[in-house]
């Protein structure tokens, strides 16, 4: 039986009487990578409420490695969140901690490693993302790309099976984050480790993700591989990639 890391079945999510996600169904095998895109209000940011925040207020089913996300109790949710690495566009670094302390925080809190092992693991991740020159700095002293790298390093330091990246690469200088994109491509090739990328720029992740899903008005309007995404004649995808107001999507 195939191992699905994320399995969403007929999920409907309503917030303040507005249907954010409307009977969506998709699956992601462990080791595969997925890019989810769509315009504002399409529901792509609401996936975060289900998959990362583990909100229970939805209809349908959502499974993580075969376990229902809806049925998690308070402590189950804490342990579940520990298993997922999350990077978002605000980055959320702790401003009273250095880069090193920010990165080692999940290990300090969750792991049973000794102080020496934590330091070693933290140093390894810092080297991977080229942050050695600023590891003693606080977030206020970092450049934007360094903040992204720190948030990314913190998300991967526990080596999670699922890394959820939400609008983290947007609003960055493409040259400065070239190394980050290379790291992301390397990570996408690791077997048993999956990525879910939520973005407004899916074309940047063709080398990263095997699968692409497009949302519009809370529904899935495109679901296919990266080759299908590149060659598609789906009107929604074409309108989105051409940045056009003409098409099936009415953008106000």
């Amino acid at each position, binding site marked *: 039986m195939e191992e699905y890391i994320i399995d969403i079945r007929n999920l409907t999510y309503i917030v303040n009487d507005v249907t954010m996600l409307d009977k969506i169904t998709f699956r992601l095998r462990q080791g595969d990578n997925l890019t989810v895109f769509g315009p504002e209000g399409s529901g792509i940011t609401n996936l975060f409420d289900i998959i990362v925040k583990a909100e229970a207020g939805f209809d349908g089913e959502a499974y993580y490695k075969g376990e229902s996300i809806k049925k998690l109790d308070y402590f189950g949710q*804490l342990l579940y969140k520990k298993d997922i690495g999350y990077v978002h566009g605000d980055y959320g*670094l*702790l*401003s009273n901690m250095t880069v090193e302390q920010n990165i080692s*925080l999940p290990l*300090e809190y*969750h*792991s049973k490693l000794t102080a020496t092992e934590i330091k070693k693991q933290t140093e390894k991740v810092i080297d991977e993302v080229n942050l050695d020159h600023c590891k003693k700095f606080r977030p206020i002293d970092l450049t934007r790309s360094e903040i992204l790298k720190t948030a990314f390093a913190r998300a991967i330091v526990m080596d999670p099976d699922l890394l959820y990246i939400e609008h983290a690469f947007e609003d960055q200088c493409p040259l400065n984050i070239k190394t980050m994109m290379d790291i992301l491509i390397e990570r996408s090739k690791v077997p048993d480790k999956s990525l879910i990328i939520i973005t407004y720029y899916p074309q940047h992740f063709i080398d990263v993700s095997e699968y692409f899903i497009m949302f519009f008005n809370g529904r899935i309007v495109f679901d296919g591989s990266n080759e299908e995404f590149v060659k598609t004649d789906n009107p929604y995808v074409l309108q989105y990639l051409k940045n056009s107001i003409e098409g099936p999507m009415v953008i106000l």
Partner: protein
Amino acid sequence: MFNRIFIYTGKKALSIKGGVVDFFQYCKAIIFSLRSLRYLSFRAIYNIIINQTRFTGVDALGIVMVIALLLGGTVIIQALSSLPKFGVEGFLGNILVIIIARELGPLATALIVISRSGSAIATEISVQKWSREILSMELMGIDTKLFIIFPRIIASILAICSLIIIFDIVAFIGGYIISQTVVYIPTDVFAQIIIDSFKFKDIIAAIIKSIIFGIIIPLICCYYGLKPNSKFEIPIYVSKAVTRTLFVSIIVNIMVSVLFYL
């Protein structure tokens, strides 16, 4: 006109009731989250405890000692100007213990801690919430109630307990120095008077007050720190944190004194 007064009073009462119920839900959530202590390694909160103890206790030492010296001197000045009229200048030690050790010491220390650390805690938590740092911690599987509030409570208890002891000692010293300008009392006699005036329940009352203050100051300040939804609300809630913690501390002080001394 009376209608308006009734409506206003009713609204205020309902708002207060809503606030109290919300605060108790918050306290219940914190007590519930103590169960995740088993998942927490002490080293994760060790730095927070150390830093908070340093900020609340060590960094406040200077101001506490100066205020203690001045207050001790003030009490003595008033006592020395009034007691001889009644022929009870021999009760100087008792007066110092009653006023400083029982009441002024704990309360003045709490006020200093509220104005320094309470406002700082509320502001720090508000800014962390606004900049989504708290959300980031929650999404890492960190129980933020345990991680943010619990170490601050431990640190505040340690700091306030120590500061109260230091406050009392320095106030007695200040009082003694001032008293020497009016009447000569040998140091060992003065010290003996103070020690004889101290009862075991004074020590217990001071410890209980320091523990309760150590709990309620970070608890209330973190509660208001988690309230703002935008950066413009931060000063409003910081101000509420300080004034309400002050109010509750005074009530708690009175209640403990009533319990022990009436």
